[in-house]
């Protein structure tokens, strides 16, 4: 299912139904792309993710843990056991909004900055997982990606069961509702990137039109046994059921994917020099900012993985990704599993920023339809 199938988007001016990807209302001509009327005006639920790493700014450095070995970071900024540099809050952070939802966002090895970002929220049988991967050719993409992921998460929470615009009803109705919400989230994320760009231009005097900050967008929502994914770019959502076929819910907006669609073998397409050129993204120069969507109704328990290419570059195929996740998922805890996936990607070379966010979609969650 994709956003184009939805008939729920409405013109904020005249109320005419419009496809989410439509630029203008067919009835009155009101521009829809930047129409903030499509996004909920207020967010009532404040998501309070558990930030596992204490903030260095609070001075609580005694509790800072080494990302490599789990040792203590000494006051000189390096691990007291293995000597690995302690990471800043932006370089490595972890969120665990519920015991079945957690994620780890990490700088990796080769990059000087962490331009990946992640924002998670969960409550009851609902979870929202957002990952944005900053485009490293543009400066300050780390700021833009964090703003984007948080804005999108807040929109998704507003459509959640505790939010102001809850998506309700039978499964098919909720698929449409969440598709609409996903587009609203990607537009809000795009707005946040623009806002970050303007703020940076104002404070640093940079001409953002030259090289504007930009990022990918991927989000997944778990809502009473329904899983919906939305994306722009090449960050991914995988559904990895305990029994049955593992699948990649998202379809990359990338040069590699276009080649695969044209018949080039996956391995060859993904290892070509242009493989990572993305064809859609968020940012001031983005041609369109509406997420493409897909939904699935799991028939049993499994893992929902939202990740950046820093992880899947080392393990692209859905079945291989399933094997990898299950290698580290012995405890059943999404937090330790996500941390293990990030460590694994770093051990493979950590050539890019790495984000892995997991939700353990369990039978008790899926049965509550």
């Amino acid at each position, binding site marked *: 299912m994709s956003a184009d199938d939805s008939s729920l988007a409405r013109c904020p001016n005249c109320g005419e139904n419009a496809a989410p990807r439509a630029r203008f209302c067919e009835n009155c001509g009101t521009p829809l792309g930047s129409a903030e009327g499509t996004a909920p005006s207020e967010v009532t639920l404040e998501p309070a993710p558990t930030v596992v790493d204490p903030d260095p700014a609070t001075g609580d450095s005694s509790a800072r843990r080494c990302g490599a*070995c789990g040792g203590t970071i000494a006051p*000189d900024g*390096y*691990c007291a*056991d*293995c*000597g*690995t*540099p302690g990471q800043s809050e932006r370089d490595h952070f972890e969120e665990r909004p519920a015991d079945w939802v957690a994620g780890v966002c990490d700088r990796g*090895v*080769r*990059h000087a900055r962490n331009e990946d970002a992640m924002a998670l929220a969960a409550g009851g049988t609902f979870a929202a997982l957002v990952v944005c991967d900053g485009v490293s050719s543009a400066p300050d993409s780390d700021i833009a990606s964090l703003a984007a992921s948080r804005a999108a998460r807040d929109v998704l929470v507003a459509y959640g069961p505790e939010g102001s615009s809850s998506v309700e009803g039978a499964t098919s109705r909720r698929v449409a509702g969440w598709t609409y919400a996903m587009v609203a989230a990607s537009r809000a994320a795009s707005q946040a990137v623009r806002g970050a760009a303007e703020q940076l231009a104002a404070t640093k005097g940079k001409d953002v039109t030259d090289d504007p900050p930009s990022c990918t967008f991927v989000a997944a929502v778990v809502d009473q046994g329904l899983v919906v994914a939305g994306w722009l770019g090449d960050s991914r959502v995988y559904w990895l059921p305990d029994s049955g076929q593992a699948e990649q819910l998202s379809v990359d907006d990338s040069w590699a994917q276009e080649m695969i669609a044209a018949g080039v073998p996956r391995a060859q397409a993904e290892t070509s020099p242009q493989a990572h050129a993305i064809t859609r993204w968020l940012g001031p120069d983005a041609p369109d900012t509406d997420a493409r969507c897909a939904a699935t109704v799991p028939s049993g328990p499994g893992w929902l993985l939202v990740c950046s290419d820093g992880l899947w570059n080392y393990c692209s195929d859905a079945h291989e990704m399933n094997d990898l996740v299950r290698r580290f998922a012995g405890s059943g805890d999404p937090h330790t599993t996500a941390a293990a996936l990030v460590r694994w990607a770093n051990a493979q*070379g*950590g050539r890019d920023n790495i984000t892995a966010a997991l939700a353990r979609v369990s039978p008790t969650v899926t049965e509550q339809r």
Partner: protein
Amino acid sequence: MAEFSAEVFQNEFLSDGATDVHAVVAVTCTGAGTTQRAVAGADAGADGVAEIVAVDTSGSMQGRNMEAAKHAAAVAVDQIPDGTLFAIIGGSHVASRIFPYPNARVPMVAMEPGARSEAKRAISTMAAAGGTAISSWLRLADDLFAAVPVAQKHLILLTDGKNESEPSAHLNQMIAEVTGHFQCDARGVGDRWVVDELRKISTALLGTVDLIARPEDIAEDFAALVRKSMARGVASVDLRVWAPQGSQVLFVRQVAPEVDDLTGRRTEVNALTSAYPTGAWADETREYHVAVRVPSKPVGSEQLAARVQVAVGADVTASGLVKAKWSDDSTLTARISPEVAHYTGQAELASAIQEGLAAKAAGDEATATVKLGRAVQLAAETGNDDATSRLRKIVEVENVEEGTVRLKRNTAKLDEMALDTASTKTTRVRRA
């Protein structure tokens, strides 16, 4: 209160797959002279200083050497400030306490005008007789020091001959027994003593070895040694080296003002941290070359390779960080730190001189020519002019750059000994 600082010189960039991290750490002590010492008569407390002068009284000293040594001991007594605990030892094949007099009940006495004049009277009665067994001198000094509750203990040892009255294993064992109890500066007068023997003592006991060519120079040297000892306001300092899990400390070497390999003096602080004793400190700078082997990490990784710390007792008072950053940029990784290069050359210079002289003494002229040639080359490269001029007394230099030399015939024994004793002295790297 004395303060320490540590400054690290290194090229932290390693090429892909490289594992060895080298750094020179300059440790500077300031304010050592302001440390309060107990100077009130006999109750010199734990902050006080104990000083012993051990003079060779073997038969070979008879004549000018004995008179000069007695004069020097008296000058040293003049230099020892009031309140400092002191004793004078006369050493031959046995050791005897000259002052306090053998019948005195106390092992050492605090200096005061009365003790000073009495000590000089005792020194004037010393007479040369008997053989030389230096282990007995160290034993007596250790016994005397052990009986006084002060933190800083210093021995000045003077001999003119070979340690001929006992097997060398005996001396080695005694050195091992007293190591860590006190510091010792060893001096040889004339050309009949053995540089290696005294160097063995001074190295283990964190002191210096030097040659006094003319007996009349002993007094001035003793006075300087006492002044230097008294200036050391910090009694006992450890250099600590932390290295990460899975790494290996290849060596820890003092490289300035003298080359002194500390690697073998390692004691364990914890599983990752080693301590190396460096003795007492005055206001001074010493430099250390630390080499650590760490597992290689992917290009782009950063790793702390060592924390080099200064510990006074259990307190870490200064710390320097030695880092490793793997890079595929050869303009970064190819550079060698000038400090590391300089002191690597100086350390090699010291061993080239010592090995060259040993080969020459053993009659192996081919090896001696190669080693001393290399020494000439290194002395020139590292700007060690003192070493160059000492080397030129032993060899004819044909080509400095290539290190080709010929051994001189009929060189003076004293010149060889001067070259040998000074071989560990380094020049500092010139910093822009």
